[in-house]
């Protein structure tokens, strides 16, 4: 079977064969960058359409159905509209920071794509501290949001940015602790190792209740980190009109909007990698024949299936839950999620030391 591994290897050997190693490396970097940008754009379009279709499904209506078959080109049309719009910079705004902020938000989202394993042997950068890298880079996005809010010279934006700052900084703790519980079980920070450790069953099944608890905490925390409802206080539409991106228009708004969807994809991909085995097919212990049948389904399908399932769950949250209030949001984190995830991490550690998992 043609695997991604063989494709990447053949491209690598052909480039090295034709060009000098330096040029080959440069060309490889270019190919990867183009691929990442293409993926970024496609994912944005797909996710926006998916969100609108999911929303329509929840709200007993049709959703976009005019542009293209079943409205499939709706988000493309929206993108063209946004590109053609004027990018306003409000009077009194800090022009440099105002224009820089959307790029920071987007670059952070793109950097996060690097260590994710999309399929067996298909990973941009298998860094040995992958989990640490993800936690570190994802914290930078709050700077972009604060920058956007501050530089807009708008009180709504400022309030939204301050909310977002408090929220992301708080929820990163529980997200980090729940990720740590998987790191403890796998014994590695490298994402490929974590996936490999789940070859005889995903952690969500192997890890008993503690891992399920940390998965629930993870899903709550990342929903908050990506500023999605019910934690969308940073852009709380009915309170702050649009929060930190009130003043953005045209392509700058599109970048922030795209980055939000890419962030959802990334956190769901990380969730799928850590708890559902990434591209690893569903394997159950020693059931050799069952495992073989599962192996016939391509690994990329497994990865995207799991990721899109988690994305659906997060969209489901958005279209059914009301929004929390800022003090309730912080209370939930500091009084409930953080203590629970700390105790949970201890439990997982004990479990890992005693070998109480399958």
């Amino acid at each position: 079977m043609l695997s991604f591994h063989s494709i990447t290897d053949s491209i690598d050997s052909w480039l090295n064969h034709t060009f000098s190693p330096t040029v080959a490396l440069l060309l490889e970097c270019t190919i990867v960058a183009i691929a990442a940008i293409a993926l970024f754009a496609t994912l944005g379009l797909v996710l926006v359409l998916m969100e609108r279709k999911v929303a329509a499904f929840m709200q007993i209506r049709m959703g976009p159905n005019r542009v293209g078959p079943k409205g499939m080109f709706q988000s493309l049309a929206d993108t063209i509209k946004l590109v053609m719009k004027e990018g306003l910079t409000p009077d009194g705004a800090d022009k440099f920071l105002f224009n820089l902020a959307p790029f920071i938000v987007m670059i952070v989202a793109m950097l996060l794509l690097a260590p994710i394993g999309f399929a067996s042997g298909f990973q941009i950068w298998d860094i040995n501290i992958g989990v640490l890298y993800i936690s570190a880079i994802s914290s930078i996005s709050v700077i972009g949001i604060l920058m956007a809010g501050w530089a807009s010279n708008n009180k709504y934006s400022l309030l939204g940015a301050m909310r977002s700052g408090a929220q992301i900084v708080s929820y990163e703790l529980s997200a980090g602790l729940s990720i740590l519980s998987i790191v403890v079980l796998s014994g590695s920070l490298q994402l490929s190792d974590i996936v490999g450790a789940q070859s005889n069953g995903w952690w969500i099944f192997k890890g008993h209740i503690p891992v399920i608890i940390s998965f629930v905490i993870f899903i709550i925390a990342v929903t908050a980190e990506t500023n999605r409802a019910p934690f969308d206080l940073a852009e709380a539409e009915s309170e702050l009109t649009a929060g930190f991106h009130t003043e953005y228009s045209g392509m700058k708004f599109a970048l922030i909007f795209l980055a939000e969807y890419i962030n959802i994809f990334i956190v769901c991909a990380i969730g799928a990698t850590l708890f559902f085995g990434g591209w690893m097919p569903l394997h159950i212990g020693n059931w050799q024949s069952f495992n073989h049948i599962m192996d016939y389904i391509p690994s990329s399908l497994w990865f995207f299936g799991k990721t899109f399932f988690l994305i659906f769950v997060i969209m489901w949250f958005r279209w059914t839950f009301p929004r929390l209030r800022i003090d309730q949001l912080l209370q939930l984190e500091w009084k409930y999620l953080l203590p629970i995830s700390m105790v949970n991490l201890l439990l997982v550690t004990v479990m890992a030391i005693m070998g109480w998992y399958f």
Partner: protein
Amino acid sequence: MIEEIGTTAEGDLVINIGPQHPATHGVLHLVVTLNGETIKKIEPHLGYIHRSIEKMCESLSYRQFIYVTSRMDYLSSHINNHACAMCVEKGLQIEVPPRAQVIRVLMDELTRIASHELWWGAMAMDLGAFTPFFHAFRERETINDIMEETCGARLTMNYMVPGGVMADLHPNFQKRVKDFIALYKSKISEYDELVTGNIIFQGRMKDVGFLSKEDAISYGCTGPIARGSGVSCDIRKLYPYEVYGQVEFDEVLETRCDSFGRYLIRLREMQQSIRIIEQLIDNIPGGDFQAKTKAVLKLPKGEFYARAETARGELGVYIISEGGTTPYRIKFRSPGFSNLSALDHMARGGKIGDLVATMGTLDLVIPDIDR
């Protein structure tokens, strides 16, 4: 505007919520003084869509001015028309035929349900949940279709005229109302599943926007807001008009005094309205739908006052007549205006999120406040 607010201290944030803002359901302008996220003071600034409806009414005849009142509280236009028609009837001492009385009550109650449905969806949207809005509109559209058949309009009905109603009921009316009741009863549990029982929703609503019984009375609150604070103020019970004295229904009261209480009141009021409709729908008496009136109405010299319970509270219509064909002076006592005056008291000390939640439970219709 900043200078106007006396209590503004160093470091306070003054923001203008509205007139164009998604939370105000229209064009209400609130000047909010904030300390961080905490609300220190709210000043509603009125007048953005003032159309001087009262002055317009003074230059229109007693038949004509009723049509303008559909544009006040556009969500209960039937009841606005009803109150005005009652006031004119009081002056001319017209006896409304029993058929017209029942039709009027049926229409009023359907309007009340439609208005509360819209409120329910908008309220949830204020709290960040978008889906309930569409679920509420599914039922509300059915009512609008029923209205359209009989009145020819979906929002500004202009159906009630002095002496009765403008036209007879559509032959399909009874059947479609019964269908609606069946639909409503099958969907009512969804409301609780989707919103009422939600833990986030309850957290946002409970112990927020507190309005004590005394404050509700002194601010002049009426309707579901006062009843949510335990004040018995249902005009349909206290001063029964038309056939409200003959039908069985309960005045819904809550003593929670918070946003959640006001929320529950409206949900239960819808069920009481259903109860009233169920009693009347099979018992519409025959006869005329309109009393015989003169072509040109002239109210005798004097002052006339009529009131009706709209979906938002008590609507008072006060006419001073000099004996001519047009009123000398008209004053509407609209429920929204008094209810809005309590907003500062209710939301002070809360967060911005609380302000939006409290404003949602007030069920403000801005054209009703700014006439």
